[in-house]
């Protein structure tokens, strides 16, 4: 049955030689060839069934109609369908009750994190740490309040978002147009005084009655602020735009206020609740 075996010396070589080592030109095994043919067959089938040949305006479609875009969409639809029940539950649950259900709170905080990174991180930062003019959402200082319901309202209607009738609105006058420069300086010294910073005591004394006359309607007599009007607390260590003398002077003279868009209509109700829940559990929630 066995054919006489060829001696290795009888085989021709490819002519390649490295340091005396030569390469045989031996035939390859036939099963290897079969594998090769099978691959060719497979590729023909693949070209028929899947997008394959690039043409000028796109590739051939393939009889299966496969597209990676549709596959992603299908996956998104599948996940959405899977989450439909818990999303319904989220919509039906009051904000304060979400944390009591571990599954629901996991869903809310994971979804909220995704929403935050998509829509909120541009201004508030990826870690919600804020920036000058954009509030830090991790701390315990809130302009309009940091409880769950208030957060939801703020996100839903935005701040100074003209197109939303329920938006949070307040405006600080430009005192540069109202008060003389001297009095503004005195008020600024008083603001530095109530926030425990270095200040000119004499000027601050003069500033106190001016502050009560002009500022206390919103910021309160002791400068603790008023969340009803979104008036910041001026007596704490946190400043939205900065608490040094020059910045305070600039703020009083020209006034400042930020704008946040209303998210109602731009993201879903469920997403609003999710992101409110997420922000609340970052550490500053009340």
């Amino acid at each position: 049955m066995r054919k006489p075996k060829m001696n290795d010396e009888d085989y021709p070589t490819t002519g390649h030689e490295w340091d005396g080592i030569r390469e045989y030109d031996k035939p390859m095994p036939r099963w290897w060839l079969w594998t090769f043919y099978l691959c060719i067959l497979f590729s023909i089938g693949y070209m028929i069934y899947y997008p394959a040949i690039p043409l000028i305006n796109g590739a051939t479609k393939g009889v299966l109609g496969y597209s990676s875009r549709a596959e992603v969409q299908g996956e998104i639809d599948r996940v959405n369908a899977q989450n439909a029940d818990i999303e319904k539950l989220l919509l039906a649950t009051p904000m304060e009750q979400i944390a009591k259900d571990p599954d629901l709170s996991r869903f809310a905080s994971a979804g909220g994190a995704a929403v935050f990174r998509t829509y909120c991180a541009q201004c508030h930062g990826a870690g919600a740490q804020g920036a000058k003019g954009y509030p830090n959402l991790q701390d315990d200082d809130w302009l309009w309040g940091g409880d769950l319901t208030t957060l939801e309202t703020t996100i839903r209607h935005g701040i100074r978002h003209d197109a939303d009738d329920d938006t949070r609105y307040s405006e600080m006058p430009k005192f540069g147009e109202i008060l003389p420069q001297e009095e503004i300086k005195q008020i600024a010294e008083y603001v530095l005084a109530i926030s425990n910073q270095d200040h000119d005591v004499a000027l601050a004394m003069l500033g106190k009655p001016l502050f009560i006359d002009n500022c206390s309607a919103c910021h309160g007599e002791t400068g603790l602020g008023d969340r009803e009007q979104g008036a910041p607390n001026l007596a704490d260590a946190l400043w939205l735009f900065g608490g040094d003398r020059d910045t305070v002077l600039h703020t009083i003279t020209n006034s400042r206020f930020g704008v946040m868009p209303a998210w109602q209509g731009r993201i879903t109700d469920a997403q609003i609740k999710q992101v409110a829940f997420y922000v609340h559990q970052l550490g500053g929630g009340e």
Partner: protein
Amino acid sequence: MTTQTEQPPRLFEGREPVFPQRVSGWYRRLKWWLMIFTLGIYYITPWIRWDRGANLPDQAVLVDLANARFFFFWIEIWPHELYFVAGLLIMAGLGLFLFTSALGRVWCGYACPQTVWTDLFILVERWVEGDRNERIRLLRAKWSFRKARLRITKWVIWLLIALATGGAWVFYFADAPTLLRELITGQAAMVAYGTIAILTATTFLFGGFLREQVCTYMCPWPRIQAAMMDEDSLTVAYRDWRGEPRGKLGKAEGDCIDCMACVNVCPQGIDIRDGQQVECITCALCIDACDTMMEKIGKPRGLIDYCALSDEPLERAGVTPKTIWQHILRLRNFIYFGLWSLIGVAMVVALFIRSDFSASIKPDRNPRFVTLSDGTLRNAYDLKISNQTGAAREFHLSIKTDDPLRLDLQGVDGMNITVPADETMHQRIYVFAKPEYETSRMDNAPIRFWVEDRASGERNHVDSFFAGDPK
């Protein structure tokens, strides 16, 4: 027949069919027992039960990919303990070095699945179609009802074995009785059916048709082994100084009577008398075949035998060569064995001293700290506690720092966290530093978190830092 040298070489070469003949002897018996042993381990292991309590699976050996757990009798490995698996792989590697250096290709010859299943398939083939000569005749015969019947019977039995092989594999990855029920009722996961289908196909193909070609062409091991063997490694060899010149009984000087018994029994289709070859898996069946022949003609056994390369010139010169044990017990093998057992001992020690819960902590990097309205600095951490037991446990959390920092757990009253059985729990924790503390002005102040099991008092700690504001 003209020799091939006179023609240009063909571009490809068909397989020369191999018809291993039945053989009996010491090595054949050893291989039967090893086959029963290895196949037994493979098929029975997933069905062994091991009680781990209500919350954990009761399968003795289970690779639970979905939950990222590996169970081996009393040992449970979590993903963060994958170094045990890495250690096992290193031991497997060193073990192969050791065995190759000492005993040559003993893995190939006795324990490799390709060898074991091919052996089983050849057994079926012989049982259905007869021994070597009948099989050769059958191959040459024209297609007839008998040939078709024999072929189909053989293939069906092969397929059943292949199916059982692929089928047993998936039981290592899920609860075996449940999965079997699901498989039969058609409710098992697609991946289970797919795995079984692929393994059935490869077993059928590799054991039935590719056989020695897997070893010769596909497997990298013969090449690696060639580099690891030396003149003291044991191989199966033909004592040509004794056998040559070969010839018919009584007509030649050598002991080899050229009966071709060694060639006929070889599952790799080679002639061991040509010397060491990459195709030889040292299955030792030629030793059995030759010994049987030598006994029949009244010559000493061992014309083909396990010996080392260095034996040959000594034996030829009539000097007593080293014994098998002298070949095995040499420095190189001791070094391999030392390394191998060092890792083994280290792993056993690690297994016994490891804690059944673990904690890790990840400080928030963005932002590193948050200033609160009273000037206090707050750092947030993600604490992860893994409870590697089958019962829920309560852990007490505390910190050790230079300044009396305050600790707070999000959504938890007090400092105790209950982690459910066999789960990892994430807990967001806060640490507060008042503005007057030195810590709040340090870039990185060391902080140690202690996690204490309330029931046993066992404590583990993780170190991290408190990020202050150096400004």
